[in-house]
């Protein structure tokens, strides 16, 4: 079976020209070497080449090829976050995201392509070296103007496209220019090949320069372009003549292309540099038009002009645009020169804030819209995230606390649905550190609640508790908002977790009154679920059931799927506590599709584990295996150890239900060891019950032995052992091994060392002969004399033998030959 390789490589925007041998060689290098860095100046085509290589190398990487774009990442902290986003790793409590990445990547045959590392060389070097040490089958392909300079890095200098000469007038650079010129609608470029050749030489074969020149070739002949750019060189040719020729060529070409722009095009290009990520026409109009130099109605035409000139790239998907890094830097300089930076970045902050608030309101909690209609807004908000970061940076830099806090608040609610709150802590800390005079008190109160929300997910409960009280205190002075309800919800979590039940109960009552009064169904659901948990905790399952049913009814009325899933999973827990396995199964399975749709894979893993546990207790073993395997894969992919612990506990339940007490004890031990490694020390009561049962049946000594072995084993191996057991007694229809249908993961892996191909190939007769002679300790010269061939030929044969057998020295060949009887001639 051929597993479908996963990747996130974009489709190529146009034809890839030339570099065939380079691509083939790099493909081989990427498989063999651990880090390959494509280095070279901007515009030389590193990114495009890397994407091509990554796509060609796909078959060699069973666990996927993933592109992580770092050009728009300015904060080193965010590199890990960006990688985690791409790989689907989610944050977890106080655990670092980096640990999650290690879990996700350990043992997988994965290629990570980090594009544009140059502004983050040191943090990238540290991160890459660390991951390589932990993940033996991981490979990196990087693009960077500067190499990382870490051990084991293979630096590959990307050259320009081949230049034409007398013998090769059809060199890569010429083919590239002609191809792009034709795409730009130029007709007669091939009529004057000598001019094309002159132009390619003048542009040093730099792909970006050729691209910019080709975009103009429908109006200007290649000869005239070459002349004009030549003139510009003369202007630039001051100082260092040779050191950075390619950079100068590129700068000259970008400048030439820029100077040919109409005035309005120049205005738009420099203003577009404020966008951090991709933007659409509407955003460009809002941020860049001023009703004076550039009117709103003109933006579309001007933007299309820039796309035609290859200065702005257009993506078919959703009509979004972006600027190439080199161009963006150039444009940002022009923006500063024009004295427009502060105004434009301020405008960008305002627009992004308004957009985010719109997304927040439209997708938000109180409207009774259908879920798909709301999900659109959540997705849109997430796409604004890069610009949101840039805008918050500007808010901090320019001291615009109010706009910054409003933006952070709107963005937070959008992030919360997927459970990513960690980053917002940094935003709030920086923004709340600004001069807050003039900022409305209510907004400060709201912000403190947001900060407490993030801190709670990071387990910083003391700080969260102090902030949450201040936040509620402040917000209570103003008319009720849904956010106050949410803040109460955070307070409940914080105070229940810190054991201050009295305070928690007081807030719960306040929430119930306030939410009911304002018909805030979302937060009423939160309150009911809190009541449910409390009743369960106090051993009153019947009351819990009642609260659960109320929560479900409320959630259905709000139509908010996140709430709905929460109500369902809590009802399932209640049913399980009451011993009604059938109802538990019904509730949990109803929540699955909702969580899938929300892409909340952390909750999904939890829910699958619950389904598995209930199925095991109902003796539906094949179903239990399916769910638990799925849960384990999800937790591994999202890098969450607490999820793996949950799956192991459920596997222990499964083993016990099947009468495999040994397996049950081993799995419980593995779960316990992993739980302690993430700083959770509360052993569940079930483990104690299991152990005393096992001691009765198996004896003290055997249980101690099993426990020790479970602690020492890799959790993945323990899980595999139980999952691979004959698929449930009495069910022969189920395939015995469920794992091949799952993506390979460190814990449930079918790939791994198998990817290391044996380099055994038969030796030729001559090679066998020479291998035999080496057993006698002869030098190349002596072998050559015996066989009447040149020493160089002997050396070549020896190298061939070493390559075929994967050996590192001639001595190894001699040993091998002796073992295989080649010495007896």
């Amino acid at each position, binding site marked *: 079976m051929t597993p479908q390789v996963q990747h996130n490589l974009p489709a190529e925007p146009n034809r890839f020209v030339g570099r065939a041998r380079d691509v083939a060689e790099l493909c081989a290098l990427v498989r063999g070497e651990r880090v390959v860095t494509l280095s070279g100046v901007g515009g030389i085509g590193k990114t495009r080449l890397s994407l091509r290589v990554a796509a060609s190398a796909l078959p060699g990487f069973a666990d996927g090829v993933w592109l992580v774009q770092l050009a728009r990442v300015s904060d080193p902290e965010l590199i890990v976050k960006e990688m985690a986003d791409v790989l689907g790793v989610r944050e977890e409590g106080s655990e670092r995201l980096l640990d999650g990445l290690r879990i996700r990547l350990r043992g997988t045959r994965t290629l990570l392509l980090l594009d544009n590392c140059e502004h983050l060389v040191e943090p990238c070097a540290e991160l890459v070296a660390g991951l390589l040490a932990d993940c033996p089958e991981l490979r990196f392909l990087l693009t960077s103007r500067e190499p990382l300079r870490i*051990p084991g890095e293979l630096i590959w200098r990307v050259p320009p496209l081949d230049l034409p000469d007398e013998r090769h007038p059809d060199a890569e650079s010429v083919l590239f220019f002609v191809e792009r010129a034709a795409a730009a609608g130029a007709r007669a470029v091939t009529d004057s090949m000598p001019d094309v050749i002159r132009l390619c030489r003048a542009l040093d074969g730099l792909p970006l320069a050729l691209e910019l020149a080709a975009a103009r070739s429908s109006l200007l002949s290649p000869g005239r372009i070459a002349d004009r750019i030549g003139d510009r060189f003369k202007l630039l040719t001051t100082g260092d003549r040779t050191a950075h020729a390619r950079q100068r060529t590129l700068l000259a070409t970008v400048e030439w292309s820029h100077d040919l722009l109409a005035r309005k095009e120049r205005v738009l290009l420099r203003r577009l540099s404020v966008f951090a990520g991709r933007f659409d026409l509407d955003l460009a109009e809002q941020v860049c038009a001023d009703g004076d130099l550039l009117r709103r109605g003109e933006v579309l035409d001007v933007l299309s002009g820039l796309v035609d000139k290859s200065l702005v790239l257009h993506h078919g998907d959703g009509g979004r645009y972006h600027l190439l890094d080199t161009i963006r830097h150039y444009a940002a300089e022009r923006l500063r020169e024009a004295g427009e930076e502060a105004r434009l970045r301020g405008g960008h902050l305002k627009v992004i804030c308004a957009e985010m608030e719109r997304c927040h309101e439209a997708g938000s909690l109180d409207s009774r819209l259908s879920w798909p209609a709301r999900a659109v807004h959540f997705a849109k908000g997430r796409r604004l995230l890069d610009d949101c970061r840039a805008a918050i940076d500007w808010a901090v830099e320019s001291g615009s606390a109010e706009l910054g806090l409003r933006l952070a608040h709107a963005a937070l609610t959008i992030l919360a649905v997927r459970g990513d709150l960690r980053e917002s802590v940094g935003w709030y800390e920086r923004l709340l550190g600004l001069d807050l005079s003039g900022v409305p008190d209510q907004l400060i109160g709201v912000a403190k609640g947001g900060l407490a929300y993030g801190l709670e997910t990071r387990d910083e409960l003391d700080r969260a508790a102090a902030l949450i009280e201040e936040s509620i205190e402040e917000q209570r002075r103003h008319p009720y908002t849904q956010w106050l309800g949410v803040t109460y919800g955070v307070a409940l979590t914080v105070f229940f977790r810190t054991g201050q039940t009295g305070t928690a109960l007081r807030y719960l009552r306040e929430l119930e009154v306030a939410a009911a009064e304002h018909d805030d169904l979302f937060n009423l659901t939160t309150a009911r679920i809190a009541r449910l948990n409390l009743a369960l905790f106090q051993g009153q399952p019947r009351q819990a059931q009642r609260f659960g049913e109320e929560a479900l009814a409320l959630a259905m009325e709000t139509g908010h799927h996140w709430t709905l899933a929460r109500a369902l999973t809590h009802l399932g827990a209640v049913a399980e506590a009451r011993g009604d396995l059938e109802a538990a199964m019904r509730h949990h399975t109803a929540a699955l599709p909702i969580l899938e749709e929300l892409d909340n894979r952390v909750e999904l893993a939890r829910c699958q584990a619950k389904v598995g546990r209930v199925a095991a207790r109902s003796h539906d073993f094949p179903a239990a295996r399916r769910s638990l395997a799925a849960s384990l894969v999800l937790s591994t992919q999202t890098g969450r150890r607490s999820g793996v612990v949950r799956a192991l506990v459920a596997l222990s339940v499964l083993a016990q239900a099947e009468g495999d007490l040994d397996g049950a004890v081993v799995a419980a031990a593995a779960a316990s060891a992993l739980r302690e490694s993430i700083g959770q020390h509360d052993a569940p009561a079930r483990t104690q019950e299991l152990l005393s049962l096992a001691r009765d049946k198996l004896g003290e000594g055997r249980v101690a032995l099993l426990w020790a072995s479970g602690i020492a084993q890799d959790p993945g191996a323990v899980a595999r052992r139980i999952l691979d057991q004959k698929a449930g007694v009495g069910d022969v229809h189920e395939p015995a091994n469920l794992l091949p249908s799952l993506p390979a993961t460190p814990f449930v892996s079918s790939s791994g060392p198998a990817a290391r191909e044996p380099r055994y190939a038969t030796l030729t007769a001559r090679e066998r002969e020479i291998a035999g002679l080496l057993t006698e300790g002869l030098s190349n010269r002596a072998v050559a004399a015996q066989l009447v061939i040149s020493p160089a030929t002997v050396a070549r044969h020896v190298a061939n033998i070493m*390559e075929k057998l994967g050996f590192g020295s001639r001595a190894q060949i001699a040993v091998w030959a002796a073992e295989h009887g080649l010495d007896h001639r």
Partner: protein
Amino acid sequence: MVDSGTGLCLTEGQLDERSAAATVQLRRRGVRAGDTVLICLTVGPDLLVATDAVIAAGGIVWPVPAELDEGRLRDRIMASRARLMISDLPRAMNAARESWVRMVVSVAELHSYPVSRERRTESDPTGRRTKGDCEGV
């Protein structure tokens, strides 16, 4: 062969052994029959090993004297149109900056035995240099 600078010597067996390993390294980096390979090293055993290895890999040796200044080095490197250069000299690395050289292989990398593909890069190959094996002979 004796290195006149250090007095270290290299036996024929060692030469064969090292150039065989170096050949495998060159092949792994894509050197094929007919490829031009630049060698910019000071005269000594390493130069000999590198030369033998390029020939055994089927390549064409394009030696560049290590004493040349950066400008001259650049001209020769450009003229060679080589894809690969063997050198340890910072001057040569700078000179190769805007050329067609894709990879610069150091002497240490050339000598790193490809014992195991998987583990080779774990430790820095510079630790494996065995220069001076027959010191005092």
